[in-house]
């Protein structure tokens, strides 16, 4: 690990560097300055966390929806850069994590330092309940405004996961192979299609975006092929790989890479109309017991180092929305895909959650 120093000189240099950033929006720099926290350079990224204090705290607790190996991986990568800070975690599905955290807070128990949700609606709800500590990261300059919370500093888009179609090449004849979204309702897929359950934020985005593209009838037509719902992309791709299903309608690219690596006869299709994309959102929790370690982790996560880790860790494979993000495994960048994301109409999107739950649950026989 490189030696870190937080002298007055580096503080002044860092502050000047921030002040001189030409790309930084005025409001962002003002908010950064308003925090009254010195910007220091650690390793190769800027942070407003007090690194010495963070090391004294010595630990932080990360609440996340991610998989166990995914969380363990990112905490280990952070710990490699900051050996004196140990990351602990609580892992649960997005909604359970939300319920648990809300219950803890209502009982005045504040154990989460950093919290990450897999759905914008959850993060917005958490924000409305005052769940985040405002932390404007110097890394925010590398993110477009739509990838940061409003106001800035509550949470940021850790990355996005996007989905196309995937089919089993041994079970599907070449002439039947899908090319676009409208192909998913063909009778050839009867009882051989999988999607995710309504608990998936990604599935919600797909439902919303494709309904916007093709109209309300799109999903009711699809319901006729009797799709099966699963909780995770791992389960979806496993069924596809083994031939239990022929088509995966919400085929996350990250899941595809993982199963392809294992030699599965699966092909990914990126429909020309675009790929639904859902963000993962992380922020520092309000009244967290280890605020400096939490801030440092968020700054690190937003930096090239953190983003590079999550783009290449096979249990994450999240595309980075950072402006200068390196290419993903396979050589492509997020910008190379046409993504469908409800950034512009977030309020309408969030408000349609109940309608989605109702339609999706009914379609899956629940």
């Amino acid at each position: 690990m490189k030696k870190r120093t937080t002298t007055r000189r580096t503080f002044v240099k860092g502050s000047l560097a921030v002040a001189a950033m030409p790309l930084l929006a005025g409001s962002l720099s003002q908010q950064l300055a308003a925090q009254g926290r010195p910007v220091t350079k650690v390793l190769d990224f800027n942070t407003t966390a007090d690194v010495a204090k963070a090391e004294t705290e010595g630990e932080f607790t990360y609440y996340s929806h991610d998989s166990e190996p995914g969380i363990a991986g990112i905490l280990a990568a952070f710990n490699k850069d900051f050996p004196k800070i140990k990351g602990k975690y609580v892992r649960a599905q997005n909604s359970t994590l939300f319920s648990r955290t809300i219950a803890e807070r209502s009982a005045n128990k504040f154990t989460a330092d950093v919290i990450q949700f897999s759905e914008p609606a959850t993060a917005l709800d958490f924000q409305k309940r005052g769940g985040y500590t405002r932390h404007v990261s110097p890394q925010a300059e590398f993110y477009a405004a739509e990838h940061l919370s409003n106001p800035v500093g509550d949470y940021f888009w850790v990355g996005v996961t996007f989905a196309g179609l995937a089919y089993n090449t041994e079970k599907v004849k070449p002439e039947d192979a899908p090319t676009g979204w409208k192909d998913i309702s063909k009778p050839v897929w009867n009882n051989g299609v999988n999607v995710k359950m309504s608990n998936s934020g990604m599935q919600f985005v797909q439902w919303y975006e494709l309904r916007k593209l093709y109209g309300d009838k799109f999903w009711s037509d699809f319901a006729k092929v009797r799709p099966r719902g699963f909780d995770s992309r791992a389960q979806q791709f496993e069924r596809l790989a083994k031939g239990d299903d022929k088509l995966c309608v919400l085929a996350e690219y990250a899941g595809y890479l993982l199963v392809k690596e294992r030699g599965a006869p699966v092909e990914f299709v990126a429909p020309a109309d675009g790929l639904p994309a859902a963000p993962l959102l992380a922020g520092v929790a309000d009244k967290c017991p280890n605020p400096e370690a939490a801030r440092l982790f968020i700054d690190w996560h937003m930096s090239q180092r953190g983003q590079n880790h999550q783009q290449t860790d096979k249990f994450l494979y999240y595309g980075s929305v950072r402006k200068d993000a390196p290419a993903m495994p396979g050589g492509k960048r997020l910008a190379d895909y046409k993504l469908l994301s409800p950034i512009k109409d977030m309020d309408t999107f969030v408000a349609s959650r109940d309608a989605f739950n109702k339609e999706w649950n009914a379609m899956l026989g629940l």
Partner: protein
Amino acid sequence: MAAVGGVESQPALPDFRARVRLMEMVAMATIVATVAFLTLYPIYYLLQASFDVGLPDTRPPTAYGIANYAKLLDYPAIIWNTLLVTFAATAMALVFGFMAAWILTRTNVPFRRALDQLMTVPYYVTPLLGALAWSFLGAPESGFVNQVWRKLGGTEALIDMTSPFGIAWVMALFEGSVAYVMISAVMQSMDPALEEASQVMGASRRRTMWRITLPLVMPGVLGAAIFVFAEMLGSFAVPLVLGTPARFYVITTAIYHFISQYPPRIPLAAAMGVSLFAVMFAMLWLYRWLTSRTSYVTVTGKAFRPRLMDMGGLRWWLFGIVAFYVFLSAVLPVATLAYAASQKIAVAFPAAANFTLEHFRQALSINAVRVAMWNSLILGAVTATLGVAITGMLAWIILRSKIPGRGALEYLAMFPQAVPRLVFAFGMMWAWLVFPLPIYGTFWVLLIAYLTVFMPLGVRAISGVILQLDKSLDECGQVCGASFLYRLRTITAPLLRPGLLAAWLLIFVASVRELGASILLMGPDSKVMTPAIVEAWFSTSSELTAAMALIQTLVIALVILAFGLLTRRVAHHGAGAQ
């Protein structure tokens, strides 16, 4: 008798006896208060949630009503599915358990001791492991059996483990082992003189079994039925793994989906869970009614030596029946998982390019998993030890004391069993979050949760054996002036030892494989194993999950083996001392 001999040395001072009696009352009151607190405290929060019609995810609720219960009528198919699978699986499990118990405790079947050990193996296995294994074997498309069948020329699937029957079959296979442990503990304590008398009078073996053995072990069978029924009602892993692909949902899987979607529908899930109280208590009432109608005492002051029926050549057939059950419920699933875990993508036909040990390497390299395994073992041992003490006393109070309300105590103890663990966990979380002592997120809360949810298991396992003990044994000690605690130590406990050891083992294994409560209650420093395994199934692959579940099973097996050796040595030592 040792107890009577021991009583002679007891001081006969009246104030001493009064003090002892006072201590007994205090001990009983403590047990009753503990049980009431452990169950009613979280149930209060659960009931509160089920009537919550206020703002979502706001605690305490902002408004109350019965809308959540009214919504249950919107899900008749789910209720029907639940009852169908539960009754079918309970019936099958009881048949498996009773047959095996009778064969292994009452007949001279070969390799009896080995089979007895093997019969408990399915219970050591997490339900998820069993479900996964049978999914590998019997999924309509990719199931190994069906792949082989198609290779041989078959067109349709030969077996379908995702059908309601398949789900009930898998549940019964693994719960049959629980029924076996409970029923065999009762059968072991039964005086064979009654069966011998029947045969001397000319009754056939089959007639003896139906007319003598079965009625005598009825408390054990009914106790097992109640417990297994409740387990089936709250079964989650099997319907999740096998039912979801076929769009077949039961109450637990529906609850799971309701609490995991956003916004979480916890009030509806709580109403679903609470409504199961009615079903469960109807069953418990039936049990109490049946067991109160007649006496099931077979262990009296008269000494007996367990004798086995000579089955002649039939004994090899009986051996085959038990061995086949063990094969289907333990050997085949474990072998299937070992095979699947050593492949990149599990398929029926092996190929060198598909072989890998990466899943085992990965399972062992996850640091959190290693820590979680160790935590699970410690928690399991502590829970089992405390659990046996508490539930043993509780069962004794329910069945043998004269304290008012002891019947209600039994219903109280069954509460945690009546609600699916996933929902009950929310009640516990809310309860222990606001508890004045800072135990939330620590091992203590897991220990309390385990003691609560496994209370019915301990009570059921021990009650069946207590019912068989003749009250006159205890009364004899009482007449001779022995205090309650002294009688407990010198008369009751030694006679209950097989039942207590069985209960310890059951609670230990149940704790190590616990899932529903742990998911919600474990903190960053108190991780346990089974949630990590289930998590692997959700987020990585069945093959890695299989590797992790196999490692867990192996560790549990080693602990059980050590426990067996230890108890045998203690028994030998005790016999030698006498």
